[in-house]
């Protein structure tokens, strides 16, 4: 489990995927507070108004309305107060162009959304184990 003080912001418009992630967090006994924004615009607002206070990390979907994940990342990386936040992409997009764009904006990882809930649990466990090694 990552340090209890770290807040996690999930930027995701699909309610089923939000639910899957919440359930997977529960199965992995991850107790960090999880915030949800349905698109990049709302996510930026939650970060800038410190609704999601530091320290924080972001799990980011790419295909969203109003502002997609790459657009959000571009703005995040240009914001002096937000640019250092670690971002983990979790998306259905297997397009190489999306991976290139995301890594060029220095995400810490790019994960394909698992197709089954069991794999969601495993995927979140992998993330959790990695986060437990990281100092933020």
């Amino acid at each position, binding site marked *: 489990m990552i340090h209890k003080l770290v807040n996690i912001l999930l930027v995701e418009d699909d309610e089923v995927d939000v639910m899957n992630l919440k359930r997977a967090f529960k199965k992995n006994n991850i107790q960090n507070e999880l915030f949800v924004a349905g698109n990049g615009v709302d996510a930026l607002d939650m970060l800038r108004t410190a609704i999601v206070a530091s320290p924080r990390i972001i799990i980011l979907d790419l295909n969203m309305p109003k502002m997609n994940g790459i657009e959000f990342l571009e703005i995040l990386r240009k914001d002096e107060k937000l640019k250092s936040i670690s971002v983990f992409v979790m998306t259905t997009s*297997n397009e190489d162009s999306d991976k*290139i764009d995301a890594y060029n904006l*220095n995400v*810490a990882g790019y994960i394909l959304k698992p197709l089954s809930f069991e794999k969601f649990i495993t995927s979140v466990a992998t993330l959790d184990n990695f986060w437990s090694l990281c*100092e*933020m």
Partner: protein
Amino acid sequence: MEGSNILIVDNCKTYIENAVKAFSETGIQSTLYFAENHIEAWSLLQGDQKLSPLPKIMLIDINAVGINGIDLISKIRLDSELKSILIFVISNINNNENKLAALNLNVAGYMHKPFGNEEIITLFSTLNNYWNNIEFSSKSK
């Protein structure tokens, strides 16, 4: 991760020996390259000994004596061919200024460097599991 290169920038011989053993024991299938300092590292990235393919992952002890890690990462982030490399800082020296600088340069992880065998295996086993579960791009723009 098979067929990919990992560049380790570190000059602690004991740690490097243990890391090599741990890589082998955890079954990491990437090819390891080593640089003792930022100059050697740059030579492997954009100099005479440029690696092909370029590493997708780097592990750097930014606080080790003789390694100007922050300068190196800054140069990498400014280079269009290198900027997307996943960089993990692994260090056991507390230097908050360097840590902040590294996080501002969007390192993928900032981790404590273990020395015990068990702890090193745990570290690389966890990293290997993580690397096997994330996607990498096949080329750079």
